[in-house]
């Protein structure tokens, strides 16, 4: 069973995403900010198979979190989720990083879950 870390500061978003991923058979861990996400990596030996990172976090950005995960834990399986895709700076950075991203509100059934299955090399229903 794949483990997915979801990082978002909105409790409603976090809960909904966790529900969706759990309904598709994933094990889900959640963090409300950058510090909690780093703590997860520091306190558990288990590494997630993917991390869904919100761009805007109260104590930093999803980009900063991704950079630290890469630098400190060698983890680079990140997928960005953002409500700021309309913003030029965010869009440019997403394009530059060449990593997968989804724009809020997410289309779980049509886009997110099929992508995750492919991304994680799993076969869904």
């Amino acid at each position: 069973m794949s483990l997915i870390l979801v990082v978002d500061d909105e409790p409603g978003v976090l809960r909904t995403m966790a529900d969706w991923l759990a309904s598709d058979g994933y094990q889900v861990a959640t963090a409300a900010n950058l510090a909690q996400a780093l703590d997860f990596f520091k306190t558990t030996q288990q590494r997630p198979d993917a991390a869904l990172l919100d761009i805007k976090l109260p104590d930093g950005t999803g980009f900063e979190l991704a950079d630290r995960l890469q630098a400190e834990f060698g983890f680079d399986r990140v997928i960005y989720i953002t409500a700021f895709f309309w913003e030029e700076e965010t869009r440019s950075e997403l394009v530059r990083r060449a990593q997968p991203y989804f724009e809020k509100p997410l289309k779980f059934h049509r886009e997110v879950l099929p992508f995750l299955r492919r991304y994680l090399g799993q076969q869904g229903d």
Partner: protein
Amino acid sequence: MSESRSWQRWFFFLLVTVILAAPLVVTYVLLARDLRAAARARHLRQINNQLNQLQEQLNDVKWDALADTYDDTLHLGQGDEAELLRQTLMWYVYPDGHSFVEGIAVVNPDGSLRPSRQAAVIDDEGQPLDPQRLARLKRDHPWLEHPWLPDYRFLARAFQKDREREFYVSPLLRAPGRLVFVVASARRDQDGSFQAAVMLQHSMADLWKNIIAPAAAGLNLWLMDRRGTVGIATSPLARASAREFRATGALERVLQKGKAARAHGDYGAVGSRTQKLGAGEALLSYRSEGDSFVVGVVESKRTLGAQGQATLTAFGGVAVLSLVLLALAGAVYTLASLRRERTSVEKATLRRYAGTVSHQVRNHLLTLRGSLELIAQGRVQDRERIEQMLSGPCQEALEGIQQTVEELEALSRGEVDLEYDGQMGGSTMYRIRPRDGKDDEA
């Protein structure tokens, strides 16, 4: 726009104004220095020229008198003495009725005078004076009838005490109604005994009117004798200067210099000194007539060189006007710039706030859409769980959207302001300022 940014703009405006003003101020200071120095030098040159003239005239007065009296001593006791006195007691009567009085008398060894009034009074043509004019002159110049001083024995004593003395110039002597000085030459016998002296006396009033005043207009001038008696002081500043000159012992030093200068054939001492007077520092320029008299002209250092002030004031006025116009233009520009920037910043703030609203709504939509799709897809079938989702996250999302809409409405009515809500990368985020101290963040 933040208040600090506005202050920065005004500070920049002040800085530019100060930088532009600096050359004007420096120019003003340099010009003031040069103008004052030039005006001061010119002023001092004028004063020195006037003093030189006065020194020469005082010298002439003294030596003319000595020459006259000396010539007259050669005729004393001769048969022509009466005629001599008649001719030398001369009233120089000018066509306009003004007169310059010279009185000559003979002083006996006991100090008594041979009355000069016995001599005839003639005009400059050598003719007897018109009786009416003579009467008027006698009224105005009582010397004709009465010697000024009550006692002239001091003259006889001076010549008797010093057997080598040929001439005598008195200090200033107070006579009834006037201050006078006496110039006299002695006649001696073959043994050097004093026989008589021919005396000529001047009143300070006449000396002032005829010799000094024409060259002293507007000057703070004083004249004192070798004993420090002030004969003339044209102003309070001149009086203060004369007092300081006497009190500090400068008089004695200048008289010594004057005596030495006379020995070298000069008129007397020439010099200047700074004086500390009640009204501040002053510059005194002085000349001595040998070691008999000292005449000084004093100017306050504050007013010395004030002739350049008019030019300086005009320049200062133009400079200040330029600065005011410059500052005015700068202030108008700064105000316009701030207004432009404020509009621009307001637009940017609204744009960023719109981004925040979009972010909030998209999060709420994610919750609503995600929950509804979960139910629609049959991924959640438990009724209790469904009710929990609808009354929990979905309800919160709906309330969030509702609150966002109310915020926008309040903003459109101008009831609330936007405030800083952190950075999103390089972009500043804004949100509605909480009302009544409560955070109304969604």
